[in-house]
């Protein structure tokens, strides 16, 4: 048997620290330089905060989608991905970090430190207040304490299931029967139910409520497709990298091909949902709905087109053939570009509602913050990978997965 104990290469570790340093400097510099170009009472270093928000959410969502993907394999009793299970778990266990960032941002928002959520402004539902907003006042019952209850429920629920799945998976290595596996199957079924509801509602609560006047029921699925494809790309890249380092030769070309198929398929799911949301709003042309795209069309047009082209046309043309999904280098390069594409997608969800017309295109602030969070993300992933053997033991579908061919 090959070497299952991953040790983090010193260079890789160094690389993540450099990325984190770059990120930290960018964030500090962003706070020092980010000032509105004109007096605007609603602009309080929004761009610097929004950048932290975008990246906190983006990487948290990847971990969440990895946890979902893990649960999906259990619930469907699918065997093909068993060889990459430990990688999926390592990605999923970034969740505590990601959720901590989110919680911190929410608390700071409630304390009035940043102004990402306009509905957190004091007096927004009070007619006598100068901050009064009639539309928000109409739906304030859904925000306020109820929003906090939901937020904490998502966090506790997701962490509970992810942690349980992980604990059972570790425990399964030590015993020779598969009782822990079947426990996980049951857990996963419940997790899927929780996730089906909370993936949508959390996207409404955390992202859609930035544009608080606007609403779209499709938004949650659209968000979900984006995070899912990013998670698959993360898994593919880790597998390819580990294979290159000489680990995980038990992962067959067919398994990676299948992950590539997921990447291809979910890119289409994303496009389908993106377009469904856009077309219905474009067609009906109702002002309260169109406002979302109007803000993007007026100030973010190049980015809007880039997101669509990179996340739709790009995978469609480049990942269609079987050979391209079996060429690891090709898969990595295309994956990297789509990964950035979905990060830009989150920027497109957050920035128009926070930075608004002060936006003047992507800058070092965006990329710097991204690199910082990326460094932390990779660092956590590598430590998760190193903490446990790269291959599960006593998994009932292990043999099937090792001999997986398509």
């Amino acid at each position: 048997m090959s070497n299952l104990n991953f040790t983090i290469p010193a260079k890789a570790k160094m690389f993540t620290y450099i990325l984190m340093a770059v990120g930290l400097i960018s964030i500090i510099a962003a706070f020092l330089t980010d000032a509105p170009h004109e007096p605007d009472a609603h602009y309080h270093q929004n761009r610097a905060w929004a950048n932290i928000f975008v990246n906190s959410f983006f990487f948290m969502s990847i971990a969440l989608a990895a946890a979902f993907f893990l649960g999906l394999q259990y619930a469907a009793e699918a065997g093909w991905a068993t060889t990459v299970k430990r990688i999926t778990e390592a990605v999923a266990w970034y969740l505590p970090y990601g959720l901590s960032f989110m919680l911190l941002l929410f608390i700071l928002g409630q304390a009035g430190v940043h102004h990402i959520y306009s509905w957190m402004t004091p007096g927004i539902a009070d007619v006598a207040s100068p901050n009064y907003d009639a539309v928000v006042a109409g739906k304030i019952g859904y925000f306020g304490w109820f929003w906090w209850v939901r937020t904490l429920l998502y966090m506790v629920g997701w962490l509970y299931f992810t942690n349980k799945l992980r604990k059972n998976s570790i425990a399964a290595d030590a015993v020779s029967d598969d009782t822990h596996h079947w426990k996980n199957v049951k857990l996963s079924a419940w997790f899927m139910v929780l996730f089906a509801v909370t993936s949508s509602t959390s996207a409404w609560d955390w992202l859609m409520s930035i544009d608080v006047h606007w609403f779209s029921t499709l938004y949650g699925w659209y968000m979900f497709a984006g995070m899912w494809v990013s998670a698959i790309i993360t898994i593919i890249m880790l597998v390819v990298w580990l294979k290159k380092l000489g680990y995980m030769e038990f992962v067959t070309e067919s398994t990676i091909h299948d992950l590539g198929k997921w990447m291809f398929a979910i890119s289409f799911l994303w496009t389908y949902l993106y377009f469904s949301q856009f077309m219905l709003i474009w067609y009906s042309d109702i002002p309260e709905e169109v406002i979302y795209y109007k803000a993007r069309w007026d100030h973010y047009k190049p980015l809007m087109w880039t997101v669509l082209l990179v996340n739709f046309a790009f995978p469609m043309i480049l990942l269609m053939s079987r050979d391209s999904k079996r060429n690891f280098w090709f898969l990595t390069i295309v994956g990297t570009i789509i990964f950035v594409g979905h990060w830009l997608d989150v920027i497109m969800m957050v920035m128009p509602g926070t930075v608004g017309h002060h936006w003047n295109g992507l800058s070092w602030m965006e990329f710097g913050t991204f690199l910082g969070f990326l460094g932390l993300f990779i660092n956590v992933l590598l430590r998760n990978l190193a903490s446990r053997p790269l291959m599960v033991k006593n998994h009932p579908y292990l043999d099937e997965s090792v001999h997986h061919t398509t």
Partner: protein
Amino acid sequence: MATKQVIHGIYDDEVPLLEGCKKLRDAGIRIKEVFSPFPIHGIDPIIGVPRTRIAITAFLYGLTGCSLATWMMWYMMVSDWPTDIGGKPSFEYYMAMPAFIPITFESTVFCAAHGMALTYLLRCWLVPGAKAKNPDPRTTDDKFMIYLELNDEQATAAEGILRTTGASEVNHKGIITEKEH
């Protein structure tokens, strides 16, 4: 005129069958056909089936569907009788493009899927009333078969390989004559 023996190598499982196929090919023996109750993943390169061209036909059918839908909508909605629907501009095709995308998509998928299925059925001649080509009906249930047509010398070698790789039966099904090329 050369004569060839027809041999049916029957297996109970697809894994030993794959092993048998590999050994036969290594010995330079041509596998005429394999019959199985279900598709066996990864068998094509092992038994020397050339790469399928169905993907190319799918692309062409898809392109046809896409073009047909675009032409149809352009002709109906823009060229022949410009129609005002929901105030969307109908002067040029691109102006109301988002409204045309679902139909373009559906037509592309429809043509690609049906074209591909029909091509497959015709190419395999799976038409109504077609005669079953399966030489042993048990391969539609729980048996797996390697079908060989070989000269005497190869037949002996092949039988050995089939036996050693775990074939449950090796049936000789007579001799056929074949024209020299």
